[in-house]
């Protein structure tokens, strides 16, 4: 009895073990024999671009397979939040690491380069002609120490101030160009009984991004960037001054009362339904607005110029993203080939039909694209200085600390000095 049980269990264990090992050996392509070249897989990883765009990616994948015998294209899509945090690092350190993956330009790309997951593709871009398919400004934040590490796929202006044209017309207002005018506009709107600015800052990045732009205007782009990289302190008179402008907005009652509780999409809806006159958010609002409230007349202006600001007063805050070739990939040239196919006018047409905004020179279809999206695209490409938002451009921990301080100032909970002092304590262990 006893012996039989032992035999049974040991057989179970043995089968389990051999089961594992045989599965493993099946996976290795070595013994597949027969075909001339063993089939290779080009793995591509990204967040979730949405149903429509996934179809386009897969069509392009099929085309690529048809053109390149013996290469299989495999896509892996993840939930955006997961991809941005643990998803991509897991994939990269895993066994079947992607050959081509989505990433944000700026600090995040820098991290990949440092960790050895990004290939220097400067030469390949030149020789394949990919480089000439984009405007020079499109590679903003993708060149590190003179080497290019990314093929751009899309860009977003993360903050302009959208405004309700109907409200502005009724009150006889013009989009303000300076901060002083901006405050006057806010006051007039407030007097008319409408909330001047709606912001949904429960996740901290919404106001965080916009205020970072104000900061960069006041302290200068370099000072902002250096502070974000902990090369100089946040608690300086310039930062206090920048936060002072933000504090004034709250103190004068120009911001919706529930700024700290509302989420970004709630604020979008409040604005689109006419509960507020202005809304500082990114270019992605344009398609949402057309879908949700087609009758709403939407205008936009860049963050107004701030008097005596040390930064470029025409700067634009935005992110560029694109695809990175894995340094450890065996298919670097194929990955470049794939991106060339992706950036071709034909593919761009498919992409814009699916609602994306391709950023190749000839990919932008001026007729079918939303006029507002087109304008915002121009705004970014012609920007004399492109400021990176804290959470995509820099270390996420520093970004969160700054965004927390911002939320305390914009919600009226702390004075600029207190918020910045607290920020310094929070980031002290990171130095």
């Amino acid at each position: 009895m006893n012996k039989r049980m032992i035999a049974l269990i040991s057989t179970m264990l043995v089968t389990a073990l051999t089961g594992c090992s045989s599965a493993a050996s099946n996976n290795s392509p070595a013994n597949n024999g027969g075909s001339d070249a063993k089939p290779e897989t080009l793995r591509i990883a990204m967040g979730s671009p949405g149903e429509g765009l996934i179809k386009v990616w897969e069509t392009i994948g099929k085309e690529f397979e048809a053109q390149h015998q013996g290469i299989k294209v495999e896509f892996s899509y993840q939930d955006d939040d997961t991809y941005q945090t643990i998803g991509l690092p897991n994939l990269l350190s895993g066994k079947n690491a992607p050959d081509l993956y989505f990433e944000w330009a700026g600090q995040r790309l820098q991290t990949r380069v440092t960790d050895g997951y990004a290939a220097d593709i400067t030469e390949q871009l030149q020789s394949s002609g990919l480089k000439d398919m984009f405007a020079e400004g499109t590679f903003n934040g993708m060149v590190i120490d003179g080497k290019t590490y990314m093929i751009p796929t899309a860009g977003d202006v993360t903050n302009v101030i959208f405004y309700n044209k109907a409200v502005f017309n009724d009150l006889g207002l013009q989009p303000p160009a300076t901060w002083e005018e901006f405050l006057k506009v806010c006051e007039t709107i407030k007097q008319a009984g409408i909330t001047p600015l709606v912001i949904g800052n429960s996740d901290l990045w919404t106001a965080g991004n916009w205020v970072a732009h104000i900061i960069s205007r006041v302290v200068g782009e370099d000072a902002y960037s250096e502070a974000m990289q902990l090369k100089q302190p946040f608690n300086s008179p310039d930062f206090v001054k920048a936060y002072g402008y933000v504090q004034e907005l709250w103190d004068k009652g120009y911001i919706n009362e529930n700024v700290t509780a509302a989420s970004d999409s709630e604020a979008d809806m409040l604005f689109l339904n006419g509960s507020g006159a202005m809304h500082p958010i990114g270019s992605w609002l344009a398609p949402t607005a057309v879908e949700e409230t087609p009758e709403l007349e939407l205008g936009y202006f860049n963050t107004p110029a701030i008097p005596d600001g040390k930064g470029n007063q025409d700067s634009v805050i935005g992110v560029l993203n694109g695809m990175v070739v894995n340094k450890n990939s065996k298919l670097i040239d194929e990955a470049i080939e794939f991106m060339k196919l992706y950036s071709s006018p034909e593919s761009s047409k498919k992409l814009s039909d699916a609602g994306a905004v391709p950023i190749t020179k000839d990919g932008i279809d001026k007729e079918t694209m939303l006029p507002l999206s087109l304008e915002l695209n121009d705004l970014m490409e012609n920007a004399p200085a492109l400021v990176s938002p804290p959470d995509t451009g820099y270390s996420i921990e520093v970004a969160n600390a700054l965004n927390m301080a911002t939320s305390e100032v914009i919600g009226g909970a702390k004075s600029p000095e207190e918020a910045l002092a607290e920020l310094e304590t929070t980031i002290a262990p990171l130095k």
Partner: protein
Amino acid sequence: MSGRSNKFSPYLFISPALLLFGFVVLVPVLMTFVFSFYDWNGIGTMKFTGFDNYIRAFQDRVYMNSYGHTLIYIVATVFVEVIAGLGLAGLITMGRKGSGLFRLAFFVPVMLPMIVVSYLWKFVYNSDFGLINILLEKIGLESWTRVWLGNPDTALYAICIVSGWVYAGFYMTIFYSGIQRISREVYESAYLDGAGEGQIFFKIKVPMIRNLVETGIMLCVLTGFQSFDLFYVMTNGGPYNSTEIVTTYLVKVVFTHMSIGYGSALAVIMTIVIAVIGLVAGRLNKKDSSVLEY
């Protein structure tokens, strides 16, 4: 049967369970402990830093405050969950008409998924179109309206109330089943002696299920440390970290900041805190056993 195989076979029998336990519990626990001494982002190189992570944890204002918030939450939930549940159990066992309906009504929130509850109450607390603020405006108490979840003074209590709304029904069910076991004769003699419902509740029902109430409080305290979903969905620690509890902060540190080492240290400290509370509570429980038997 030979003695030799007998010695060997018990280990073989428990080996599957032991291996499973080892891989899913023991190894991760030990790894977490090891990671807590390193500076590590999950993929890059691991740098040994000794007790730096622990020192940092004790200087971390947000982390230390999160224990305070957890404590407030636990104390509040003992009242709004256990004590309220006890009261409800007393009410529905009074034998009045329709108490079955109320029993069901109070229990329904327990069956709802926490995520659904959280979103539901987010709407209730919404400052623009939320039920509470609209109600206050309608009855002329406009000055009482608040941005409930956006105000650091009210957000934590607002969450506690939701927790009570859900779990009062759960504790009620536990106490209800306890009270059901009290035999009828006890009530009958009490009635004959002229006791009212209030006296029956405080002098018969509560003392006779004291064991259950103690267990309920214990459960409430220990699960207080595990709560996560409600906080994560309703405020995610905001506004200004005023509702940050240990678990939500841990998730932020590990998954948003990618500080596996520091996060591990925070988790180890939390484990120690819970273990100590559990041990102390166990001691206190053993001391008095003067419970009414029935």
